[in-house]
């Protein structure tokens, strides 16, 4: 595993695992903050066309190690990802 650097000022880190990492060819990257949680999947789909249906629709999301509910697109009433946050895309797990 590579060390995840602190995100630059005005950014948050998003971590990719398993299929999300394969699709993005990255383990992590910094995105501009703040970002309403409801816009996260849209922002990722814009960067990686097809990611939503292939990956994100079956994933959970954590912010700072806590699972969060991702509001539907266009609903900005939910939580907002802040500068310095650690967001992770969690594909269906396969331990064992």
């Amino acid at each position, binding site marked *: 595993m590579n060390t995840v650097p602190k995100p630059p000022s005005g950014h948050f880190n998003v971590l990719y*695992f*398993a*299929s999300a990492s*394969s699709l993005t060819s990255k383990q992590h990257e910094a995105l501009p903050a703040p970002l309403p949680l409801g816009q996260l999947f849209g922002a990722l789909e814009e960067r990686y066309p097809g990611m939503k249906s292939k990956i994100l629709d079956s994933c959970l999301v954590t912010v700072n*190690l806590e699972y969060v509910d991702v509001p539907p697109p266009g609903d900005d009433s939910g939580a907002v990802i802040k500068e310095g946050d*650690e967001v992770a895309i*969690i594909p269906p797990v396969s331990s*064992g």
Partner: protein
Amino acid sequence: MATTQDEPETQTPPTQTEIESRSDVEGGEGPWTLTAPQTTILLTHAPLSSTWALDAVRSPEAGALVLFAGTTRAHFAGRRVRSLRYESYVPLALRTMLSVAERARDAHDLLGVAVAHRLGDVPVGEESVLIAVAAAHRGPAWRAGEEVLEDVKANVEVWKFEEFEDGGGVWRANRDGAVGVRVDDGEGKDGGVEGA
């Protein structure tokens, strides 16, 4: 899917290792451990030791120790697996493993529970997961052992990549009905249901 968000902070027991973010555990190969009363959690790139797991739960009050060892299989859906690799969101996986173990400890009055998962490349036929429990009697020990394993497989943030001898590979998914994502062509999908 049960998640750690269901656990109120006030119920979080004191642990030897407090892990706040991925950067706390990056840059090393581990091993990483978390402990709570009668509970031991381990993530490691090294081979797993069944003796370690049994010793972690051993108690003079126990009448039964149950050990489950999950090993890496050489076949999936008729295709021969050349190699297996596990990756993890280590700080979150440790937390989830701890909450799984504590749930079983409290539900079955366990005298000890240990959960260990191996990461990185695991040769075919070697242990990838160990579950050990200690209880006063065998009934609760058997039941708790199975419960912990199923809970681990459903929830712990560890992912398995199987590379096939005939090319390509797949990120597996344990969840019923979930698909494994192929990375060779992006089109094919393998069912992801599997046993340990």
